């Protein structure tokens, strides 16, 4: 039991690393994709819509396999960590772009109109008037997405990233007689211990932002 706990916890930094890096890629990468989804130019809009639907339409595990086993730059193949981070990062970009777009769509059209009527330019209107309001609306969905990404990061174990689930699997295989499913219970507990504070913080933040809105 003690050994199992230790081994699973040794995978925690990797779980967090994969989650944080791919979330960061998603938060940033979602912005140009969202702008593309809102573009006034038809082909840009359609291309981005196609990309977002394509990315979201294929299971994450399949994307990781494709990136890990299928992509090579000359002689160089993506290592498992890179494949996992970029794979989950690109998937996150697509989901977050859709979350951002939805948040912009809920803003009353009067906001953009009032800004335009004052003579504020498109960039100022987007960054100073619309985006802060959209971000508030989107925050709960973004937090929910982060939690699901934390759990999905375990998919990285299937291509050999030594995260918590990877270590739990290893331990169970190496101690078939004694370990049973204990390592997985431990992993489950650790996921919960991280998730719950994130969920609580997000809810607090949400109510606070709602009050100042």
């Amino acid at each position: 039991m003690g050994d199992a706990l230790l081994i699973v916890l040794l995978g925690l930094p990797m779980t967090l690393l994969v989650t944080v890096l791919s979330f960061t890629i998603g938060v940033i990468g979602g912005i140009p994709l969202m702008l593309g989804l809102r573009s006034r130019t038809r082909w840009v809009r359609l291309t981005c819509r196609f990309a977002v639907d394509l990315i979201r339409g294929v299971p994450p595990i399949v994307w990781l396999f494709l990136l890990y086993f299928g992509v090579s730059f000359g002689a160089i193949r993506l290592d498992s960590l890179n494949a996992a981070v970029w794979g989950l990062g690109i998937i996150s970009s697509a989901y977050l772009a859709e979350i951002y777009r939805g948040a912009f769509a809920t803003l009353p059209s009067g906001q953009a109109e009032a800004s335009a009527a004052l003579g504020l330019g498109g960039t100022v209107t987007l960054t100073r008037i619309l985006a802060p309001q959209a971000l508030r609306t989107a925050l709960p969905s973004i937090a929910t997405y982060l939690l699901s990404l934390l759990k999905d990061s375990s998919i990285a174990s299937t291509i050999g990233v030594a995260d918590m689930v990877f270590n739990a699997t290893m331990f169970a295989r190496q101690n078939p007689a004694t370990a049973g499913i204990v390592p997985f219970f431990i992993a489950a507990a650790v996921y919960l211990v991280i998730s719950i504070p994130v969920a609580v913080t997000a809810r607090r933040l949400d109510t606070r932002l709602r009050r100042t809105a």
Partner: protein
Amino acid sequence: MNVPLITEATELAIAGVQISNLSKRFGDHLVLDDISMNVKPGSVTALIGPSGSGKSTLLRCVNLLETPDGGSITVGSQTIRAGDRVKDRELLTLRRQVGMVFQSFNLFPHFTVLRNVAFPQEKILGRSREEAEARARVLLERVGLADKADQHPGKCSGGQQQRIAIVRALALNPRVMLFDEPTSALDPEVGVEVLTVMRELADAGMTMIVVTHEMQFARDVSDHLVVMADGHIIEEGDPAEIMADPREERTRRFLNAVLER
């Protein structure tokens, strides 16, 4: 609220508005059909007519929130012709001359009242934050809302929000003000506060185009009344004369309907 809204006479460089043969369609629907209208510098024009007659669309064409399909619009010395490519610079120049107040206020909810009034000044007139906020406080004071400066607009009543919206536009020294049913979302008692501010603005010599159902305001404050129906101007002239004795049957019916409410 006895202090005139605009005392700095130099800031009020008034402009007129000429609308010539303006047309606008949404798909197959011709919403404005060959509209021509002349608004003299410093005058107040009231625009009335049944729902769907094109009043808002006409107003929104003046600052190019809608793109006209035909005709031209002149504000001060700047003329925009339908069909010409409007450069971003020209568009912003036009909008900076023209202030607009909407039925739904459209204040920015994530800013305080003070920031709502100061932020556009900083971006558009290049004022420093201190300068813009000082000016904002003076204007808020004049409409009796100095104590609301540090609140968010969501905490203000509708009448207060609309006065803030007017002040936000005025802070940019517009040469023309457009009002699209500024009191329609308000209870009559509250609407009066807003109408008082508009009346002061008119007295100070601002060029105004006001879409309204407030017949008393139209009669007492406006210099010119324009009646629209189905995308046409069906009648225009002296407000008191038209209200007392409309030439058009449709005007008569519309006035009766409004006055019965």
